[in-house]
């Protein structure tokens, strides 16, 4: 591998480009402010299937196939698929890709999976292990609630700090020497646990990891927030974003309007009653694949730092009183 590593940050020698993206969104996401940027919006969260899990896998299948189709290639052109999701044993993406007949890496980074998939996909290309790789992820509000929280029809109240898991699937095609925005460098996060135990305040649990990765990225690269046109965290929501700003400013990094969060961008908080914002693997994935990618192509954004964040607890660890370990991956993407 010829890439340069400074601290936690990898600078790629090879030209690794995002040559296509696809974003499939659920009904609620389709009613949000980013609706027109998605490739497809389903008007039914069951997506014509008999279970939410099957619906999620169908989202994966169609979104991944669409990314390949938009790239002008075939599934057989892919060297690897790197993907994961929130469900146990990553079954959402496993079942979605089982008929694709492409070498597969299943990864789990909770809601940061999009970042982890792109990171590992880029490293595979840099190492010369492949020239075309699909990195993708999915999440589904209903299947995630079923696994991690309460039944949907239960008459309880959601706390104001809670976030809304995004339904959808997003994928990027990474190509060596392709045409499209370039993966310039990636800062891999460490597991950070700030002792938060409240599973309905994921933004607070993940903000510490976002601070750690972003500060490490700035130290390794000698950059600051102003270097980028947009710095977008994955799914900290309003609560996590406020914590992030407080800590970044304390660390000496001035935060401006270019700092945002995919969970804030994807929903209209007031009209859609999503409390602290959106979350889930698909939150950063479809926000990038639909919205930011188009902004990069159009030239509205030239340098983007996208920082998918993940809360790495399990439904068992929470019951056993464990706090929530979190992670964040920072990916610098530049318009070519």
């Amino acid at each position, binding site marked *: 591998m010829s890439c340069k590593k400074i601290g936690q940050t990898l600078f790629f020698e090879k030209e690794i480009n995002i040559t296509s993206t696809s974003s499939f969104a659920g009904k609620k996401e389709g009613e949000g402010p980013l609706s027109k940027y998605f490739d497809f919006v389903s008007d039914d969260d069951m997506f014509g299937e*008999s*279970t939410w*899990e099957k619906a999620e896998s169908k989202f994966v299948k169609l979104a991944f196939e669409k990314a390949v189709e938009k790239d002008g290639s075939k599934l057989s052109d892919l060297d690897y698929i790197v993907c994961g999701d929130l469900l146990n044993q990553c079954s959402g993406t496993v079942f979605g890709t089982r008929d694709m007949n492409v070498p597969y890496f299943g990864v789990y980074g909770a809601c940061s999976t999009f970042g982890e998939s792109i990171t590992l996909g880029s490293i595979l290309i840099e190492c010369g292990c492949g020239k075309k790789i699909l990195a993708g992820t999915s999440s589904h509000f209903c299947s995630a609630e*079923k696994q991690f929280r*309460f*039944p*949907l*029809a*239960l*008459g*309880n*109240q*959601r*706390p*104001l*700090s809670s976030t809304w898991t995004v339904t959808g699937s997003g994928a990027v095609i990474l190509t060596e020497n392709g045409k499209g925005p370039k993966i310039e460098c990636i800062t891999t996060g460490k597991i*950070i*646990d*700030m*002792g*938060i135990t409240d599973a309905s*305040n994921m933004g*607070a649990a993940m903000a*510490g*990891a976002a*601070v*750690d990765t972003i*500060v490490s990225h700035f130290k390794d690269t000698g950059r600051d927030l102003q270097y980028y046109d947009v710095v977008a965290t994955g799914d900290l929501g309003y*609560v996590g974003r*406020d*914590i992030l700003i*407080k*800590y970044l400013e304390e660390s000496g990094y001035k935060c401006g309007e270019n700092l945002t969060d995919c969970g804030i961008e994807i929903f209209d908080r007031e009209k859609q009653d999503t409390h602290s914002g959106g979350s889930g693997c698909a939150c950063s994935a479809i926000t990038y694949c639909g919205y930011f990618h188009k902004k990069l192509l159009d030239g509205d954004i030239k340098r983007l730092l996208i920082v998918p964040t993940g809360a790495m607890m399990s439904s068992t660890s929470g019951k056993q009183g464990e706090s929530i370990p979190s992670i964040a991956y920072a990916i610098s993407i530049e318009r070519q």
Partner: protein
Amino acid sequence: MDTSKKAKEEYSKIVDELTPKSKILKDVFRSFVSGGLICVFGQFLKEFFLNGGFEKEEAALLVNMVFIGIAALLTGIGLYSKLGKFCGGGTIVPITGFANSMVSSSIEAKAEGWILGIGAAMFSIAGPVIVYGITSSMVVGFIYYFVK
């Protein structure tokens, strides 16, 4: 990120400051009024059944049956969660909340089949209420037996 004990305590304080709090007065008021209205409706039903010639115990059982039926129906058509969002404790504490917890768990488990799905999941939320309800009634029963 400093993850020392002191830094975590400081972080926790900042999280508390920046996390929006529930509006307790509004929530309590809504719970009180909605829970109260459910009880008034229950009393109305009880009087109705008593006037219809039922014994006191039979009338109480019928009230429960009507409440459970209504809660199950509203859960099934997706209205109970909306009601619960507005009423909070007002629709959780009465027997309607118990019915809602069983029906909502069952609906989600339907895909896993009748035995390992619905049969196993039906009491996933209601189970602890039954276990500790019976346990505490036994404790109170013992005390009552010896103190009487």
